[in-house]
């Protein structure tokens, strides 16, 4: 009963705090619309390419038509000089460049290696990758066709035709995110990070405010009961938010989700519980509620690249990689991605669950120590 009253009391604290309500009910929804916004078209579309045609033959014109027809590229202009091509790229009118060398047709038909030069604006990697993929595919297929025709006509070797053109056929297939789209890549991971970061702000500021209130007026509930009630309240609220994110918003953005609800709920609650402990612990280090926002603002962007979905974990220095294991979002994101997007079994996530449990133990111990210390200070011990 005491716990129930404490729960109501904690809810009153939250409800009357405009800033916290803004984060909980404004921020969570706002971010759910804002973060996916840049990626709604999911894949990078046609990129403009400028062509410098030094060959001016039937074959070079075929190549240009092929490049224009690729889903990744369209030909913006065919220009006579390198200078003009450069100017177009600098002005942002084209993102890629294809140079068809003099004697391209002649060389190909004679069986002399011809060099096709591609260039893309590598200040933007996604554009570069798309441009190169389009140009390379168009160029290689055309070359293979010409080579096949020539092999049939010239017969220099008795080696089978298919082996002359393509000794080993390499095919590349994306798994889990079939379109290799950006929404599927960014959203499932960033949503988990948003849950952690907004929890650090809201629960962190509620905790620091309660600490300050306790120092002035006698509290209505003992600190142990109050913290437990607050923990239950926030994990409960955030479970609803998580259901909204992983249920409704994943459906809305057509993000693939394969886990059944029970393991998903269990892992989410574990993750949210650890986040709540960290938020309360940090609440014991702040001296004012705004500090929770400052900490989140400073840490969010680096965390995107540290937790392991945007930048490979294997490319981080070992010490940094190890340190990030103490942030709930690391096992939270990697675990939830494995479970819900990549279809791993519950048992295969022992490492992620283990890290969450280790973090939980550390945060509880530190929190208890801080709570005791503060109580002793207040008693003047």
């Amino acid at each position, binding site marked *: 009963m005491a716990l129930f009253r404490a729960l109501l009391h904690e809810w009153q604290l939250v409800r009357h705090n405009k*800033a916290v309500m*803004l984060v909980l009910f404004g921020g969570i929804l706002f*971010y759910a619309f804002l973060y996916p*916004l*840049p*990626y*709604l078209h999911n894949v990078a579309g046609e*990129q403009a390419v400028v062509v410098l045609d030094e060959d001016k033959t039937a074959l070079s014109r075929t190549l240009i038509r092929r490049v224009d027809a690729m889903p990744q590229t369209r030909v913006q202009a065919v220009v006579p000089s390198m200078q003009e091509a450069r100017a177009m*790229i*600098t002005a*942002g009118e084209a*993102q890629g460049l294809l140079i068809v060398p003099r004697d391209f047709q002649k060389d*190909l038909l004679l*069986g002399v*290696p*011809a*060099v096709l030069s*591609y260039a*893309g604006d*590598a*200040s933007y*990697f996604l554009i*570069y990758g798309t441009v190169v993929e389009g140009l390379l595919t168009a*160029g290689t297929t055309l*070359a293979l066709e010409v080579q096949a025709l020539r092999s049939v006509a010239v017969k*220099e*070797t008795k080696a*089978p035709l298919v*082996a*002359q053109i*393509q*000794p*080993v056929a*390499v*095919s*590349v297939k*994306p*798994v*889990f995110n*079939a379109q*290799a789209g*950006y929404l*599927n890549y*960014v959203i499932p991971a960033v949503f988990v990070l948003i849950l952690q970061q907004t929890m650090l*702000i809201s629960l962190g500021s509620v905790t620091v405010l309660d600490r300050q209130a306790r120092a002035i007026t006698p509290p209505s509930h003992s600190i142990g009961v109050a913290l437990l009630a607050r923990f239950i309240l926030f994990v409960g609220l955030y479970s609803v938010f998580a259901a909204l994110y992983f249920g409704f918003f994943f459906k809305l953005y057509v993000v693939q989700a394969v886990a059944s609800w029970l393991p998903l709920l269990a892992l989410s609650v574990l993750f949210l519980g650890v986040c709540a402990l960290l938020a309360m612990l940090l609440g014991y280090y702040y001296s004012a509620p*705004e500090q929770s*926002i*400052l900490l989140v*603002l*400073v840490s969010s*962007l680096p965390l995107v*690249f540290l937790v392991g979905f945007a*930048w*490979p974990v*294997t*490319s981080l220095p070992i010490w*940094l990689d190890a340190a990030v294991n103490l942030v709930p979002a690391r096992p939270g994101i990697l675990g939830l991605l*494995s479970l819900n997007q*990549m279809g791993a079994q519950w048992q*295969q996530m022992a490492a992620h669950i283990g890290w969450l449990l280790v973090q939980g133990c550390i945060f509880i111990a530190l929190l208890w120590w801080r709570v005791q210390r503060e109580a002793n200070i207040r008693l003047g011990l």
Partner: protein
Amino acid sequence: MHWQVLTHSAWMRALNFWLFPLMLGLVVVIFAEGTPRQMPVAVVDADASVESRALIRHLDASPALDVKWRYSSMKEAKEALRTGEVFAVVAIATDFQEGLRRGLSPEVVVFYNSQYLLAGKLASSALREAAAVYSAKSGAMLRIAYGQEALSAVAQAAAVRPQMTPLFNPAMSYSHFLGTAIAPALWQLFVVMASLLALNWRWQQGPLPQQRMALAKEVFYTLGPVAFTMMIQAGLMLLAFVTLLGWQPVGHVGWILLGLLLMLLAIQAIALLLMVVIQDLVRALSISAAYLAPAFAFMGVTFPRHDMPALGQFWANLMPSTHYMAVQIAVADQGARGVHVLGALGALMVFGLLALAALWRLNQQSQQEETSHGTV
């Protein structure tokens, strides 16, 4: 100038002096590899022949790849892919060697983890490249085996040679590509945080002057010191780009510094308006978090701006960092001259109008306060 604003709290000292260099260091360390190396991949070698082992050695020799596991079944490999242990799996079928020697063009399938899009794509293109070299080699061997003369066999095994040139970022380095975008996005957050804290400090010091010019001067005295330390941090940032990220600006750095200064003024104008309208530090910080924390995604560096939906492009335009980044990339990477970036610089100046609106409102507020005091 109220220089004491810079040191009045631990957080102000952190934001104005030591935390940004520390975060710069962190960004440098994260991308220290430049391009990811030794990415873990797995092979399922059902053939287990001389040729299949030669192919695997070829893949492992690529600096981007580390053939970490060899599995006997696809099932185990898929598990490793699911748990994120490897970024890609190469499947070699049972008849690989026979197919290759008989010239039947045997298939090698690469499955890459597109959930980790960047790592997966990098691993798959490294695999594709290494396999293509191996393929060309065995093609030449095959032609020689069929009696073609070695020289022409080698020439024809690779009839078209693609030559790829990454413009403006010749080393294809991620530290250059991402680091030089993340740092300005972080700097933007530092400027808005420090400016809001500075204004809040001044609000607590007592009433603002009534007279319009005096009021503007007071705001200037409060934000000026922050602008000063932040410009020093920005200079430090450019220095770190040059010394640690291999950034070599082609165009004139003056335009970039001008861009940074205008971006700083734009953010301070936003901070002033937020503080004046909301009149509460915590909520003003909350709103600026909602507004500017996602700025990096809208800069158009990771996902092209012209491929965003109209609403996304509109939102991107509302953030100073988007316009600054356009200046930085155009001038530093593409060597654009000043005239090309005047549009973006002008857009940054438009944010200055917010400062005028904020000052006007602030003046109104302080006069209302005066009259309410008068009636009491």
